[in-house]
């Protein structure tokens, strides 16, 4: 964390860049060594301390080289710094898996261990590390992901690791998939229906583990619609609304159904739940309106009158959200 804090300190312009890099390098090695100690203490394999140190320092130095390199060249000029802050944050996230993989390769070469290849990455043990890294990156993710959801999921994972490691592994897979979809979606403009369904299923799978018997779900995507293109993050807010406003607050829970169909050149996606239903006074519906309003605005801009989002009461109870837009197949 100290390195992170230093990254954004005002540039001490009087000192040469190489000197500042050397300072950071020293600090990084110390921090990484501590991390290695911490990891061996946590996993109880103290005999691996030397190996852990080599890996940890290799990862840290690679990450530092990338981030400090960018910082000392591009971000050094205060005028440019503000503009580059967001791309830098993205780079920060992207660096983590890259540095982790390369660090492990270099560490393995130094130690004479078998070098992992990309297909077996991340391994089971790495997933614990990814969880660790996720916690550290929480602040960066807050903008896109509701922290309550993330912390509750991590709390479930923490519990599952002790009770049912296999289920924990499944849940972590869902979480990684959900995070990947949510984060990449903010950059990508369009996506395929298959990808949107995968993200929805990852989220629902996650929530089904958390809510236990209270949640069941069904996703139906006809094979010929898998490649249909649509704007990113259209489906996800509807699915999350069904959970957050429909089923999570309902004592008995219920079922979420996500279905896609095509007719007359239109793509229709229906998200229905058997939850609490629409609020009786539609005026100050806190939260629920935001996702719907944003989605409607996006549809209006992209398609005008050719697309629509309607919310109607489902029978016997719950909400049916119906999204209609022009069918575009790549």
């Amino acid at each position, binding site marked *: 964390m100290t390195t992170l804090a230093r990254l954004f300190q005002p540039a001490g312009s009087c000192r040469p860049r190489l000197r500042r890099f050397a300072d950071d390098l020293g600090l990084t090695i110390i921090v990484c060594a501590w991390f290695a100690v911490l990891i061996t203490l946590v996993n109880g394999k103290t005999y691996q301390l030397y190996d852990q140190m080599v890996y940890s320092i290799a990862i840290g130095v690679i990450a530092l080289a990338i981030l400090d390199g960018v910082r000392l060249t591009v971000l050094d000029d205060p005028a440019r710094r503000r503009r580059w802050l967001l791309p830098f944050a993205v780079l920060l996230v992207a660096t983590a898996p890259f540095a982790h993989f390369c660090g492990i390769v270099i560490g393995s070469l130094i130690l004479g261990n078998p070098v992992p290849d990309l297909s077996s990455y991340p391994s089971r043990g790495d997933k614990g590390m990814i969880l660790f890294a996720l916690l550290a990156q929480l602040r960066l993710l807050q903008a896109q992901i509701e*922290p*309550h959801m*993330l*912390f*509750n999921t*991590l*709390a*479930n994972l*923490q*519990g*599952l690791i*002790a*009770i049912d490691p296999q289920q924990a592994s499944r849940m972590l897979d869902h979480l990684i998939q959900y995070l990947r979809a949510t984060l990449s979606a903010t950059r990508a403009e369009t996506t395929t229906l298959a990808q949107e369904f995968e993200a929805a299923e990852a989220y629902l799978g996650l929530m089904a*583990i*958390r*809510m*236990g*018997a*209270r949640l069941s779900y069904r996703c139906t995507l006809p094979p010929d619609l898998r490649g249909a293109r649509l704007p990113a993050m259209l489906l996800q807010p509807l699915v999350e609304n069904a959970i957050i406003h429909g089923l*999570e*607050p*309902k*004592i008995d*829970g219920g079922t979420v159904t996500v279905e896609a169909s095509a007719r007359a050149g239109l793509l229709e996606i229906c998200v229905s739940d058997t939850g609490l239903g629409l609020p*009786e*006074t539609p005026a100050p519906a806190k939260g629920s309106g935001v996702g719907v309003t944003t989605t409607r605005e996006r549809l209006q801009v992209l398609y005008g009158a050719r697309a629509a989002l309607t919310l109607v009461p489902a029978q016997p109870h719950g909400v049916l959200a119906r999204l209609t837009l022009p069918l575009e197949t790549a």
Partner: protein
Amino acid sequence: MNPTPPIRALIAEDEPILAATLAATLRRVWPDLEIAGTAPNGVAAVQQALDLRPDILFLDIKMPGQTGLEAAQELAERWDGPRPFPQIVFVTAYDDYAVQAFEQAAVDYVMKPVSDARLARTVERIKARLAPAPGQAGGDGLAHLVEQMRALLPTAAAPAERLTVIRAAVGNIIRMIPVQDVAYFQALDKYVNVASSEGDALIRLSLKDLLPQLDADQFRQISRGAIVNMRHVTSASRDDAGKLTLHLRDRVDTLRVSPLFAHLFRQM
């Protein structure tokens, strides 16, 4: 010498894995504690607490049915009998508002994921509170909770538009009732009953939405379901069980005051 009965805890948490995890962590840090049950929602939490009468209640904040805060309020209103009110520990994943409020009120609360070390500190605090202090009956949990809940309850909220006249539908006419003539507002399912010297009328507005629109000095919340006009209160009486009842000018009906608000009617 009787052996001391085991200390019993009830866990209210809607996510089964988290409930099991909290129970397992408690067993590690406090092996003598008996976990009397697990309630899956805010409504069951109150019912099970009344049935099982635990010494400690772990309440998740965000639960279906009602929140942990609401459950604690309801339990405070319905708790009776000789057993001391349970020590309440709130459990939360992430909630800026709640955490802030807890810190101010110094309520015991733990954040999910719950670590052994953090829970052990909570356990120490509970043990200290459960041990009867010399010269004291012990287990003043309710009084303690009342103090803490008061800090959490919405007080004179953000100044909203003040209501001067209540427009209530009675049949097909709209009655205009000046707020100073209202004796009390009482929640009835989806409506609020407006009780005045002229009789009763219903409005479709929740007490929560109503409260900020009323003069906070004149209108006070006295339970989860009622707001009273202090200028209409003629007396407050306490029965043998310690329950407080309000009597009102020009009304034959009376109002029950929740222990959480009893301080409003203490003698000077």
